[in-house]
């Protein structure tokens, strides 16, 4: 590097700021070898210092800082937290989850409910409500807050009432009516429609769980499960 090249670099050199720059280091080395260049550099540095000092003397208008502080944040169309898109999305997801969660849990499918209730009645249970007619049974369910506004199928109304249970399935109330027909048991389970996922429609669906035959349907806000130790034909005769 000759002195002319060094000048080009040192014209933009600031002691203490640009020392780490490799080209500046080389140019400074050249200035140490060339006294004329060293004098020139000295003048440049002095000139820069004088300009810098003048610039830093530039007065700032009175009140500028106050205006910035007073106006900028207030005028800024800052988006309120409740208007931000992520907040809306999160809120929408929470609402959806709250509304649909009971239905979205695969464990609470109707199939699981049917299997659970069949297992319950087949295993034997203690008759909690002693009653010999439908009205007394409904009254007890109503009194204890269990589903009681159910509609009995025409054929069921002719069956003998043995009693009932204030049953529960996964924390949901199930009114269990225990009936008798043709020398064996018949059960009618009633649960809120919203408590289960994939509930059957209005048309009865027939299925067999072990030795128990079932018919299930939904009417209004309730889902029904009729079960018997007999066969499907027997169930059809009750509907």
């Amino acid at each position: 590097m000759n002195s002319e090249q060094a000048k080009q670099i040192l014209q933009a050199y600031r002691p203490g700021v640009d020392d780490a720059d490799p080209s500046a280091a080389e140019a400074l080395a050249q200035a140490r070898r060339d006294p004329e260049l060293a004098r020139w550099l000295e003048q440049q540095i002095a000139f820069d210092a004088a300009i810098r000092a003048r610039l830093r003397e530039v007065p700032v208008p009175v009140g500028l800082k106050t205006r910035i502080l007073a106006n900028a944040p207030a005028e800024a169309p800052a988006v309120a937290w409740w208007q931000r898109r992520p907040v809306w999305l999160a809120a929408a997801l929470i609402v959806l989850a709250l509304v649909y969660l009971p239905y979205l849990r695969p464990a609470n499918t109707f199939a699981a409910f049917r299997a659970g209730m069949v297992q319950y009645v087949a295993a034997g249970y203690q008759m909690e409500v002693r009653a010999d007619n439908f009205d007394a049974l409904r009254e007890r369910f109503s009194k204890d807050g269990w589903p009681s506004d159910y509609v009995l199928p025409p054929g069921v109304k002719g069956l003998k009432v043995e009693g009932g249970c204030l049953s529960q399935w996964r924390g949901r109330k199930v009114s269990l009516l225990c009936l008798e027909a043709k020398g064996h048991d018949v059960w009618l389970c009633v649960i809120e429609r919203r408590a289960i996922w994939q509930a059957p429609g209005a048309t009865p669906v027939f299925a067999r769980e072990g030795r128990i035959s079932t018919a299930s349907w939904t009417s209004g806000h309730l889902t029904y499960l009729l079960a018997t130790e007999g066969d499907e034909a027997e169930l059809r005769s009750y509907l």
Partner: protein
Amino acid sequence: MNRRAGQPSFEALVEQYYRGLYQFALSLSGAEAEASDLTQQTFYIWARKGHQLRDASKVKTWLFTTLHREFLKSRRRQTHFPHHQLDAVEGELPPVAPAVVNQLDADEVVAALAQVDELYRAPLVLFYLEDFSYKEIAAALDVPLGTVQSRIARGKSQLQGLLMTKKKVRE
């Protein structure tokens, strides 16, 4: 106004940088009112968008970049763009003695800077004002690192030429 973790408060930011930003703006525009507007506008933009800056260490560069962009935008909007041709200072000039500069007041230095070609003015002012490294100047003005030094050198030559002329006029 949102604030990312690690970022200083708005008040602290104004306190730290409004003076330097104003001086930068004044050196670019040469007009007090315009410099005030540019400084306020810069903080206004920060209040709206500053939270998007992920690296808190780049706040200073962000502010000076924003002010420079706003200055360029305002220049584009102006119908009559005051362009100063300074062909006369292309060659090498004798160094201006510091004593000459010391005879001038801040307003005169700012006025001279405002006549430096716009291409060189911003890097030159950042060179003097804020102890930005060449890399930071390149980032703030969005120019290649290699051109920063040459623009500073050319801007300085123009400034020296303008100050020499001023000195001759006085004599």
